[in-house]
């Protein structure tokens, strides 16, 4: 794996966006050979999307031949609800770029049973962009989720519902009680996983992901088994790591360079 450490959330998200732009352009996607991209929602990805939109508007990348699969969506609120992940993706990415709507996939009650097959039909996901929860969850795979899980319905924990109430005018009753989510295995099946984490709140999850043991109590740790895993974090998110760990990865980055080492 690779760890990329940048000073701020802004710089981290810029690095991730540039990395994705480079990967799409290097892939030379075409109608018959699209670039298949897995996408998350949340505050860390929001800034990545803002940078992707900037790159698109500057003519540095096109999404014409990109196929996307989102990780998750609430069950029980309409797709046009302002807090739905449909709304999030439309607001922050899709409406600003040239991606044809027919190439976008978001899991739902209707399609979740076929979701992994739909991904397989496109030849699998080339790059899965992920966030991570402070309890180490990836997508809605909360602590205790099977590390070989596929796309399915998950009941949200009381903790998640309470935490999400802030997005629903503080009304716990209004927060959806379940979600459809890709499984840990769905993410693991991608040919590359890029995870972004920022802030002190994510520091323990980052420590578990890097220094902990593989455990379904921190589902992010499954990515230790992934052959191509890049983790991009800001300084604040490294605070629970051993100095030795951070130094090691910084040395590696210096030695090997990264696609945009100057960023």
């Amino acid at each position, binding site marked *: 794996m690779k760890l990329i450490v940048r000073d701020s959330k802004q710089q981290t998200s810029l690095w991730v966006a540039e990395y994705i732009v480079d990967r799409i352009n290097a892939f030379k996607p075409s109608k018959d050979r699209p670039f298949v991209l897995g996408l998350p929602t949340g505050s860390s990805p929001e800034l990545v999307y803002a940078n992707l939109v900037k790159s698109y508007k500057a003519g540095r990348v096109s999404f014409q031949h990109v196929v996307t699969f989102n990780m998750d969506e609430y069950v029980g609120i309409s*797709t046009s609800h302002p807090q739905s992940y*449909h*709304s999030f993706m*439309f*607001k922050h990415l899709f*409406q600003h770029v040239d991606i044809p*709507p027919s190439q*976008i996939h978001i899991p739902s009650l209707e399609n979740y049973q076929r979701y992994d097959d739909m991904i397989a039909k496109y030849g699998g996901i080339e790059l899965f962009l992920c966030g991570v929860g402070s309890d180490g969850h990836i997508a809605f795979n909360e602590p205790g989720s099977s590390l070989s899980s596929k796309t399915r319905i998950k009941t949200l924990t009381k903790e998640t519902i309470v935490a999400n109430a802030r997005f629903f005018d503080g009304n716990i009753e209004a927060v959806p009680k379940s979600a459809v989510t890709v499984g840990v295995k769905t993410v693991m099946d991608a040919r590359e996983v890029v995870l972004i984490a920022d802030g002190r709140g994510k520091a323990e999850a980052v420590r578990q992901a890097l220094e902990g043991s593989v455990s379904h109590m921190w589902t992010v740790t499954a990515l230790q088994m992934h052959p191509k895993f890049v983790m991009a974090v800001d300084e604040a998110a490294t605070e629970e790591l051993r100095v030795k760990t951070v130094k090691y990865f910084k040395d590696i980055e210096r030695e090997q360079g990264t696609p945009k080492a100057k960023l």
Partner: protein
Amino acid sequence: MAATIQPPRTQSLPTDKLIRLSNCLLPVDGRLVPGSLVINSTTGIIVSPQDLFYDSKLSASSTVDLGGRLLVPGFIDVQINGAYGFDFSDTSKSDDEYAKGLRELNRQFVGTGVTSYLPTITSQKNHVYKKALPHLGPSARDPSLGSSSLGAHVEGPFLNPDRNGIHPHHVLQVPKDGLHSLDAVYGKDNLDKNIKMITLAPELLPPASLPSLPSTLASKNIILSAGHSTATYSQLISSNINMVTHLFNAMNQPQQREPGIPGAVLSDTSRTHYFGIISDGVHVHPANINWAYKSNPSGLCLVTDAMSLLGLPDGEYTWGNGESIIKTGGVLTLKGTTKIAGSCVTLVECLNNFMRYTGVGIAEAIKCVTTTPARMLGLEGVKGSLSAGADADLCVLDVRSDGSVAVEQVWKFGVKVFETSGRKGIRPGVVEQSRL
């Protein structure tokens, strides 16, 4: 007759006719932004771009190129007494003739850009209300009818005789029994179905009913507006009344120790005070309009207070109560006096005056004839809005070299109902097949 308003369907179906209005400038947060708007011509509602994006079964079947012109919500006038020779207060003719005249007015009036309005009845004898109001309730949801009534505005007869303006003294009344007086004069049925706004002088109300009347009426979706009144600053502040009829006209003017209604409306920030104001260049000094807007920008609703003489030639005309009005250009006076007797300007002329008086650009000024009156009427997001789910009542405006605007097209419930013909240098809207 009053039509029952059914809540319209907001979700678009694949069988609906969707139209994309493209290549236009839209007012967004006080700025003009290039963009497009998709409307549902079947439901008469503005379509959410997100729904259109995700739902592969929905697509715009035609595109109208607006040639870079402005696309704004249709205007709302909350005080207008008549137009094109039809006076809402004139019930001297038969019911059928009244209904016919009203239909004709609505069809012509929509061409001025006013897509919804409150037909306003000045102070009258009781029988006039009983006869006219059943015609003036909310219009049916049908674009072919032209401009829609959102319910009637009854300006009187509970007005202060000291600030009567041109409302004749002999028809003015005192609401001594509060709501019961209103019931008796307008009719209970009209209060329940046909009236949207009541202008009265709050100081005439019995002290017991003043605090509760605004909320009682609000529960019937009726706005109580203070006007033709000698109310003091503190009387208005303590009244629970959040709307004022034609600010500065027919009220006490601000004095150093008694700011009056204008002082209350323009200085009190403890709640939102809405106010109508006539920017016809005659009723209110431009500086007062500028002052009012700068003090309380989110409360200002431009109104015409136009009379039925709007669109008719100069001369002497008889008013409903048998008195004569002299029309000299845009100025109306009561015969033999210098009293101003309403205006005969269009709302877009008021809007252009307003922009000149205040230096405010169209993207911000447009709120005074759209968003602000809609919010005042409790219709935010339904009328006077370009948001998804709002009624597709729209105006296409041309900006002239002096910065003023002219109405080029009017759309009502997603259907084009008016277009100026043969203007030079303007490419007419081109309808063409298009993909999403």
